[in-house]
């Protein structure tokens, strides 16, 4: 299975989560006795249905000695169940004319099938099999270990600046589990025994830790009957679900480092710790990033790339997370440009935001951009099911799918300036230079 890149997942959580106030997305939600939260969205415009299950387990729930388990399960849980043979999970879906996939973040894991609506029951059966008695056994574990290693080679090791996120997060956090990468440690995965996997499955992949979100061409009452048939018999989990309550201490001094590697051009990364997603200040920070990097006319691009020609690329985005996250600003320097010079130009733009309010016109542009993003998002049933599950899981309020845009539009120019002053400070950041390792040449 493909793990969607974290950047993509998180930017989608931020950028595409709700729709303009014009079009309300209706939904119904309730809990089964075993604790499974159900969200149903009925939309008959297309005869398809997205059957999705989101488990509230991500890399932050892992044992620090066994990192990578949540992502590993994204693969493992396609291996089959007591009633589904190895490799048959995807065959059932494809024979039905459907598609399937999954993704994992620091906070949660998401599995989905998009099927013709007359195959709704098949989707329920598949997802309930996965929740009730997935095949967690050595044969599948061995296969998926190799697949995940290939995935890491392809997506991290063999990717330009592939270690950017892990190097940044491991310094931005000293206490909180966000410090380790979602894909985890291959040593940890090698060391994990079958019993560890079974224990992880029994702990997290239980109805009381999941949201069943179904969107599409369904009849709500019939769907409820099917949900009862396939999910109500799944026993509630009996183990305590570990939820880290670690609070990352505030930074008191800048962390600065240089990482040597095989990439030729210097990459400059600044990571500022920010409040958790959903807080008022988080929206202000997100709007601030939009000022810095929303489109070709944004400030970082115009100053650092177009006018000063110091970088090939410059951008910023918030890494919004359930617990306090980080926001990243980064630039890929032009050949022969010193990283210090690039960083100074980036800082200049940030400093300007602390001393001058943005113009009314610029604020309007931001709002237009936000609106356009919200409108074009949620065009697909799978996207709606995922957004509803996210909003419920993170905020206990699925209706944010309709209203979150207002939180963005309510941000004022002053709040953007305040966010810059409060969070974009020297002491609150990690600055990394990714530089070419000259010694690689002599060793060749």
């Amino acid at each position: 299975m493909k793990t969607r890149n974290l950047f993509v997942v998180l930017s989608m959580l931020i950028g595409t989560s709700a729709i303009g106030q014009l079009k309300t997305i209706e939904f119904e939600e309730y809990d089964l006795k075993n604790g499974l939260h159900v969200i149903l969205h009925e939309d008959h415009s297309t005869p398809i249905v997205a059957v999705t299950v989101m488990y509230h387990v991500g890399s932050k729930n892992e044992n620090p000695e066994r990192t990578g388990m949540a992502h590993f399960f994204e693969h493992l849980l396609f291996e089959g169940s007591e009633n589904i043979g190895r490799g048959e999970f995807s065959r059932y879906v494809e024979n039905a004319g459907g598609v399937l996939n999954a993704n994992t973040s620091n906070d949660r894991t998401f599995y989905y099938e998009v099927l013709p609506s007359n195959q709704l029951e098949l989707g329920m059966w598949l997802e309930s099999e996965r929740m009730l008695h997935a095949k967690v056994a050595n044969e599948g574990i061995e296969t998926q270990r190799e697949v995940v290693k290939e995935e890491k080679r392809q997506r991290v090791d063999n990717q330009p600046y592939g270690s950017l996120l892990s190097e940044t997060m491991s310094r931005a956090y000293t206490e909180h589990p966000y410090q380790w990468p979602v894909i985890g440690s291959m040593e940890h995965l090698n060391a994990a025994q079958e019993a560890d996997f079974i224990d992880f499955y029994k702990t997290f992949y239980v109805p009381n830790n999941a949201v069943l979100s179904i969107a599409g061409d369904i009849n709500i009452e019939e769907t409820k009957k099917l949900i009862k048939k396939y999910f109500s018999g799944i026993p509630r989990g009996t183990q305590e679900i570990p939820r880290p309550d670690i609070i990352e201490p505030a930074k008191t001094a800048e962390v600065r480092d240089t990482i040597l590697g095989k990439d030729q051009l210097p990459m400059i990364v600044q990571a500022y710790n920010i409040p958790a997603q959903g807080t008022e200040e988080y929206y202000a920070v997100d709007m601030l990033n939009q000022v810095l990097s929303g489109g070709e006319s944004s400030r970082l691009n115009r100053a650092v790339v177009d006018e000063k020609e110091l970088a090939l690329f410059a951008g910023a985005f918030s890494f919004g997370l359930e617990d306090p996250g980080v926001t990243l600003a980064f630039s890929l320097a032009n050949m022969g440009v010193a990283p210090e010079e690039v960083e100074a130009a980036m800082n200049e733009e940030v400093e300007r935001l602390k001393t001058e309010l943005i113009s009314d016109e610029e604020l309007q542009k931001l709002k237009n951009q936000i609106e356009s993003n919200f409108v074009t998002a949620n065009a697909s049933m799978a996207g709606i099911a995922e957004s509803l599950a996210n909003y419920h899981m993170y905020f206990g309020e699925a209706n944010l799918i309709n209203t979150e845009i207002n939180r963005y539009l309510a941000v004022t120019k002053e709040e953007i300036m305040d966010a810059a002053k409060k969070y974009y400070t020297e002491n609150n950041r990690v600055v990394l230079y990714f530089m070419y390792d000259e010694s690689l040449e002599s060793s060749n």
Partner: protein
Amino acid sequence: MKSFKYTLLIAISALFVACAAPVDRSIVPMPASAPSIQLGDYSSFTLDNGLKVIVVQNNKLPRVSYQLTVDRDPIFEGDKAGYVSMAGDLLKKGTATKSKAEIDQAVDFIGADLSTYSSGAYGAALTKHTDALLELMADVVLNPAFPQEELDKLKKQTISGLASATTDANSISDNISNAMCYGLDHPYGEPQTEKSTEAITRDDLLAYYNTFFRPNISYLTIVGDITPEAAKAQAEKYFGAWKQAEVPSMSYEKPAIPDGNKVCFAPLSGAVQSVINVTFPVDLKPGENDAIAASVMNSVLGGGVFGGRLMQNLREDKAFTYGARSSMSPDPVCGSFSAYASVRNEVTDSSIVEFLYEIDRLASEPIEDSTLQFIKNNMTGSFARSLESPQTIARFALNIERYGLPKDYYASYLTKLEAVTKEDVLRVARKFLRPENAYITVVGNKDEVAEKLERFSYDGKVKFLDIYGRDYVDLAPAPEGMTGKDVVLNYVKAIGGVDALAKVKSTSMSGEMDMGQVINITQKTKDNSMMSLEMSMGGMVVMKQVFDGKAGVVSQMGQQMPMGEDEIAQMKKQSDLLYEAKLDDYGTTSELKGIGTFDDKAAYVVEMTEQDGSLSTVYFSVETGLKVYETSTESTPQGDMTIATTYKEYMDVKGVKFPNVISQTVGPQSFVITYKDIQVNPKLKNSDFSVN
């Protein structure tokens, strides 16, 4: 007590029903009956000028799309093939009042999409920006200016695109398959060539536009967050002034069916794979009664699903290919069937056997029930999922109007699909498939493959074609006694002769390459032994090669790589203007293969073999002696790639001729370098070629 016991028994069994009724999880749920799609009613009306407007109101998102379709008959373009599509591209590149840059800026400002093509235009925007969008869309459709400079730019791009297609086996396969299936004198079969593109003028575009871009043959499909009333008001406001005129209609003869299977072969030198296409025209119109059964039939054979018979046979069972598929394309003028794959040379004939076997099997035996169900499920799913895109819905509404289909044609599509039986599939297979009257087109290695294919032709002969599907003219014999060396030395003479070349101590050439962005290129040579090449973009150097006569360095995006032995050997040849005069010194041998044509002009074809064994085929104009074309095969990590280079517009600088325009295609990419400044004997220093 008897009655009590009985009651208890009832109670207990009732309890079982109520509580236990356990799900038998070993049973895979069956699909429910096929749903019908709620496409929503669409409304349609006609403006006074004849423009038919279709409105599909769908308020799901506050966004509206507008698709304009000019429903003209296909046009046979003849010796200017390509002008129709160019006219479409140019619509958006300038109007009476706006430049291309102004149009682009205005579209981006409202976050809209706008594109134009030969048979119409498409635009989409948020509801509140639709007036701004329509103003632009109507302007490009009603008042296009067809600026000459934009036409020139587009012709250049098109020609380099065509050049890259000359060595692309798949493009050649399309060309020859269409030429065979429909004929060269049919709009679907005629090729666009470099020559036909060169011939296109602004007047051709204007004539096409003025004749065919008329509201009375056009449809405007409006989909999204808009009422039919509002849509009507917009259509009238923005397209009401569009003037109607009589538009000629054209009809074409039905293509002939071959007397038996006929192998048609386009040689591609050095090919390691054959592209096979078993094809024939089919009389199948969109939406006609058998269209859905024909589509099921095609899916069984090889449309879309991995489980298709061709894929299972040629890939899974025989491992001849990475993928084998088929298509059945309905068309109002003439439809076609194709079954195709790329296979390695040595199994070309065996693959054709399997293609014919599978096509024949489908037309002679009913399919299995399980296969039918699998295909129906799959088609149901992909049909349904395709509807998430509003564009699909727009297409359906348009097809209903355009082809006169029943209004519920698509709404009941899944039900009709469900009703298809295996007898239907057999019946349509017999009706449409022609395993004994097919064109078997092959693009590949003539020497290794062609002869073995004779047995598939009803007359035992292979028909050879050029890359455009015209009769292939084999090389004519070269004059008696003439050698490859003679041709090469004649070329040396043509570019100025040994004496003039010997006076050249240094050169400096600068040119441009337009890849969306302009890339500047500067090449320098000195003393026939040193050279440098620099490419820059927006003032920034992106690539630099330097060779000092002994060693060389390539730097790219901050990375420096010393040249290897092979590259150094190449550099020595490239920096020596007298290379062709000294082939023996370099250990290069030449062989004159005959007289062929390049760009429809006669050319000597010389095969050159370098000391390391690498081969290239070079074409020298019979008339001028100049080098006009060259191909070679290079091995790359992506496999063997053919590099084709064209030399044009030779220009005299101090008695030596240099090509002013060089175009090169490498695999799917192509580049055109136009030199702006060529200097002979400029003052250059050795340090200009320093590798340190």
